[in-house]
């Protein structure tokens, strides 16, 4: 048997995935170069190459390229990939094209923990100052994981995770989390409120080699974990019980997927704040183009997620340069109409 059960079925010409995936890979490289080149200070392709290969280039430009733009662009690729792969996995798990990682509470939990830290952080005197930079991401990550585990716990019945209950429990717990954030914004002063607001809208402004060294490996591991479970997700299209009847260990797969997505999205959100819409849009668009087989779908969605986030971040840096727009505004503002156009234009395919 070949790599993917679904892809093996092709008997009518080349699979769309064989065309779309290489295109997306090329697209990521192009978007990456574009993101490094564009900014308040424009940089040419030659200068990028020179900086990378140790050629002669202005020292300030070299610093901008190597220490600001490249880590930030890589961060966008990783975060976009992990959000999109996480969205793909959640859509497959919940058997619902509208599912995304926020459903399992990871973003909400992370946001609540971050808001806690922003408003009450000054009183956390036990944390040494030099660790404070990383204390907030760690708090956000832990907050996300805790909320996911609570929701999963609530959805346990006789040792099984009931997906429908999990959906409803997620909605309820997210409401509580949002109330908590609301309370913190009420208590907080103006500056804290602004910080919370910015965090809730997401930004890649805090990127650098440090955060990237945390997000990069986690993102890679999570995408690989989802890929390893791609065949179970294929089986899940028929329903949980049918997947079980086909011999898949659905319970283990569900737990692994939830933990992997929570860890991946939790890490991403911890450093960048909440970035909406990429997790829903990217899988959806790729599924329209190449069909529902999860192995190519996960790869394509991860690539497209990276591209979308790179382009959105580049816009954020350009529109109000030298200031920066929160990226969540751009992903929603551009993503939503595009998504709607896609829905209306291809309505018959959603039947």
């Amino acid at each position, binding site marked *: *048997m*070949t790599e993917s*059960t*679904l892809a*093996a*079925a092709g*008997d*009518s010409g080349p699979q769309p995935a064989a065309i779309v995936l290489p295109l997306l890979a090329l697209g990521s490289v192009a978007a990456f170069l574009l993101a490094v080149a564009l900014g308040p200070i424009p940089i040419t392709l030659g200068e990028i190459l020179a900086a990378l290969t140790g050629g002669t280039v202005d020292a300030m430009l070299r610093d901008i390229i190597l220490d600001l733009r490249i880590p930030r662009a890589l961060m966008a690729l990783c975060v976009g990939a992990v959000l999109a792969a996480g969205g793909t996995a959640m859509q*497959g798990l919940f*058997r*619902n*094209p509208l599912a995304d990682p926020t459903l399992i509470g990871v973003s909400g939990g992370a946001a609540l923990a971050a808001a806690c830290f922003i408003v009450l952080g000054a009183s956390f005197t036990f944390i040494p100052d030099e660790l404070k930079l990383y204390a907030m991401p760690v708090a956000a990550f832990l907050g996300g994981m805790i909320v996911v585990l609570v929701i999963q716990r609530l959805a346990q019945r006789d040792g099984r995770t009931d997906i429908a209950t999990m959906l409803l429990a997620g909605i309820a717990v997210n409401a509580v989390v949002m109330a908590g954030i609301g309370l913190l914004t009420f208590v907080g002063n103006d500056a804290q409120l602004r910080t919370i607001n910015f965090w809730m809208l997401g930004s890649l402004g805090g990127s650098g080699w440090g955060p990237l060294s945390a997000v990069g490996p986690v993102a890679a591991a999570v995408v690989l974990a989802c890929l390893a479970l791609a*065949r179970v997700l*294929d*089986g*899940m*299209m*028929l*329903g949980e*019980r*049918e997947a*079980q*009847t*086909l*011999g*898949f*260990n659905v319970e283990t797969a569900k737990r692994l997927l939830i933990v992997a997505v929570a860890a991946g999205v939790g890490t991403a959100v911890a450093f960048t704040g909440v970035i909406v819409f990429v997790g829903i849009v990217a899988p959806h668009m790729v*599924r329209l183009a190449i*069909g*529902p*087989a999860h192995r190519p779908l996960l790869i394509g969605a991860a690539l497209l997620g990276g591209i979308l986030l790179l382009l959105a971040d580049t816009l954020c840096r350009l529109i109000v340069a030298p200031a920066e727009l929160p990226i969540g505004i751009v992903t929603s503002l551009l993503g939503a109409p595009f998504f709607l156009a896609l829905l209306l234009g291809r309505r*018959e*395919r*959603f*039947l």
Partner: protein
Amino acid sequence: MIGARNIRRRIGGLDDISLDVPAGACTAIIGPNGAGKSTLLDVLAGRSRADSGAIAFGNRPIADWPALELARLRAFLPQSLEVAFPIRVLDLVMLGRSPHHGLASAREDRAAVETALRLTDAWHLRDRSYQRISGGERQRVQLARVIAQIWRPADRDGEPRMLLLDEPTASLDPGHRLAVMRLLRDLTLAGIGVVIALHDLNDAARFADRVVLLHRGRIVSAGGPEAAMQPEVLSSAYGAEAQVIRMADAAPVIVFR
């Protein structure tokens, strides 16, 4: 092939069911709505656990089978045929080959899928979107999926296989309904055991080797079609007066009044 001993299950209401379904024969489970037909099929397939009692598949308790090994020998066609995302018919049937991943060659998988789709008269639908074909066509495509799941080349030996189907003809036109029933009978000739929940008693009388009549979670009668479907037991189970019209050289016809 599948043996059930003193099965009880509170959810679905099975009450002390003992039953043997052999390979190479067609067993029809009939009974009124809510009699427990689907639950019994689920339990026999190892999809639901019984509260008490024992189920054996072959010579092992069904719970002792590794899931993948069992999946290559027994397939189940549910009533609900929803698929989460738009998918091509060919890809959907290929999903049935999942348990053979790493064991069967790509060519063998394709042969299984093509054979199954041709058997169910759905090969012409192979490139259509599953979401855009009719209910009856979906039923035939899903039937092809479960046949592909337990398909193996004719020249290869192996343990007996079982196909369990929950009302597979519910939304088929008369022509396709008869074609599917004939197909199931042909599968029994190939050594596959077929267990089928049916509403159409005439199909049961005509195509089943054995009929099991369920009523309120209990087996009311079981045996050959004529023996199991006596007018009195049918009348009391279905709450309508049943007449069994014997034919000279064909299966009896059952009419309710």
